[in-house]
């Protein structure tokens, strides 16, 4: 059976000043169309590397990634990325930020009026039409991230890649954006891979949670299926047994089985090395 996204036995090594560093080893993951998958793990476990490999921003060392049967070897708008710090061009208005992507992606298939309608449609999806002429530094962090999502959606991607999209936001804004994301996912049925640190966020949004072991040579540790009916309501789920069960599984994995003993030690060592006066 052919999978929509097939991450097949990939590994990634980086060349560093002190030799090669094996970040990922034998990562294997199949994702179906329309699925919402979260990648969760401790800092430095290579989650972002996986996302960058799928995006094509990095090249795999061994193995291969196939989207719709086609091997991924370069970045492209069919795998749109939502960056953690929104990555909007500060010199372009909200409208032009999305316009830059729309004009690049649809230059052969849409005319001016269609592009304009498409930009406005995507702004509407994230409730940002009122700010279309604002510059990024004139709007809040949550609004910037909404625009970042709109820009990614406007590329009409097969796959939406979100790199800790709500990590830099305050709790209330984060909750609003999570609800918006669920709504958009229900409406468009797109396939989403999201990296997160937040266990509640992962359980609330995902169909599947992929938990990664700690690096070096990180790999997929365990996968949890979240069989909660949609639409999901965060208040109702707070008391839900299934929700809490999933949450428990993830927490067990992260804090019981895979507490990063080694990395913590090396972090302490690093700190000492960089601060000789402390020694």
């Amino acid at each position, binding site marked *: 059976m052919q999978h929509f996204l097939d991450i097949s036995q990939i590994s990634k090594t980086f060349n560093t000043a002190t030799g090669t560093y094996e970040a990922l080893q034998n990562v294997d993951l199949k994702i179906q169309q329309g699925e919402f998958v979260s990648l969760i793990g401790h800092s430095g476990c290579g989650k972002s590397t996986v996302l960058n490999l799928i995006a094509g921003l990095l090249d795999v060392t061994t193995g291969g990634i196939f989207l719709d049967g086609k091997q991924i070897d370069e*970045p492209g*708008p069919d795998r749109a990325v939502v*960056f953690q710090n929104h990555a909007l*061009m*500060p*010199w372009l208005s909200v409208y032009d930020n999305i316009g*830059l992507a729309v004009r690049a992606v649809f230059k052969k298939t849409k005319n001016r009026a269609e592009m304009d309608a498409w930009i406005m449609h995507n702004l509407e999806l994230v409730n940002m039409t009122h700010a279309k002429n604002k510059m990024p*530094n004139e709007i809040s962090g949550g609004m910037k991230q909404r625009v970042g999502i709109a820009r990614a959606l406007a590329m009409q991607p097969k796959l939406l890649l979100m790199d800790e999209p709500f990590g830099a936001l305050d709790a209330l804004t984060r909750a609003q954006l999570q609800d918006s994301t669920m709504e958009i996912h229900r409406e468009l049925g797109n396939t989403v891979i999201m990296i997160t640190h937040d266990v509640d966020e992962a359980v609330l949004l995902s169909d599947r949670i992929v938990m990664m072991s700690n690096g070096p040579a990180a790999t997929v540790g365990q996968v949890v299926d979240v069989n909660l009916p949609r639409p999901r309501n965060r208040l109702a789920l707070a008391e839900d047994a299934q929700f809490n069960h999933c949450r428990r599984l993830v927490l067990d994995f992260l804090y019981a089985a895979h507490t990063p003993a080694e990395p913590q030690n090396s972090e302490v060592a690093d700190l000492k090395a960089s601060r000789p006066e402390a020694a």
Partner: protein
Amino acid sequence: MITASLNHLKAAGLRLPHLAARSIIPILGISLFLLVWQIVAANIDTSLGKFPGPSQVWQQTKALADEHVQQRAKAAKFYQRQEERNAKKLAQDPNATIKMRAYTGKPTFWDQILTSLITVMFGFALASCVAIPLGIICGLSERIYEAVNPIIQVLKPVSPLAWLPLVTMVVSAVYVSDDPLFEKSFLNSAFTVALCCLWPTVINTTVGVSSIDKDLVDVGRVIKLPPSTHVAKIVLPSSIPLIFTGLRLSLATGWMVLIAAEMLAQNPGLGKFIWDEFQNGSSNSLSRIMVAVLTIGLIGFLLDRTMLVIQRRISWDKQAVLR
């Protein structure tokens, strides 16, 4: 009338006292400088008399302005006489060939300022046309940067005056034309300025381009921007601040270099004015040179301010504090 305008000022948020308070310290500073200048100057004896103090310099400033007005009047009279003569000639013989001769009087101080300004702008523009694209290419490609960097580092510290003989020889060998668009001396000065203007802009543009936020570059990769759009929409806007830092350094260097080149090569301009006065050695020479020195400083300052105004107009970040 006065009370009315005062009330107007008060209505505008009491700007007057504020402005006055802010200018007190600079005015004090300038006054102190003039005082020290006067005292020190009175104690320096040179073979051309005492070193000029502020009042002598001010006198010569007025004298130079007067000379300019007189020269202009002379030139106007010359052209008037020439026209009258030609008209007479034509009246006698309608087929007579008439000649128009340009006035060949000595260039005044103001003419020299204008020449210097045109030269520095030409050299600076020429350098910028090369330096900005080169900086962008070096910033985009690590390999090209590694190839070009050693050359830049070696050429950067070269004094302009070392280039001057080479530039002069090359211009006179290569630029051969019966009806030259530019004077050779103009080209010599301009090219020397350009050679020294290049480096600050190249280096700063390179740094600006290579330090673009990686996420913004990744956005460009994901939407597959063609290289030209990538440069226009992402690279240029994000490196504008450093490009302008480079341009301002270049223009300041260029202006200093130009004066030295004009002095050494006897090319028309403020530098030649100073050299001529030095050779002239009259009792007014030192004062006149001092006028030129202050003028050079003032123009250098204004050039920098002009660049700042242009940067404010072009830059997207209107909130940035520019100094």
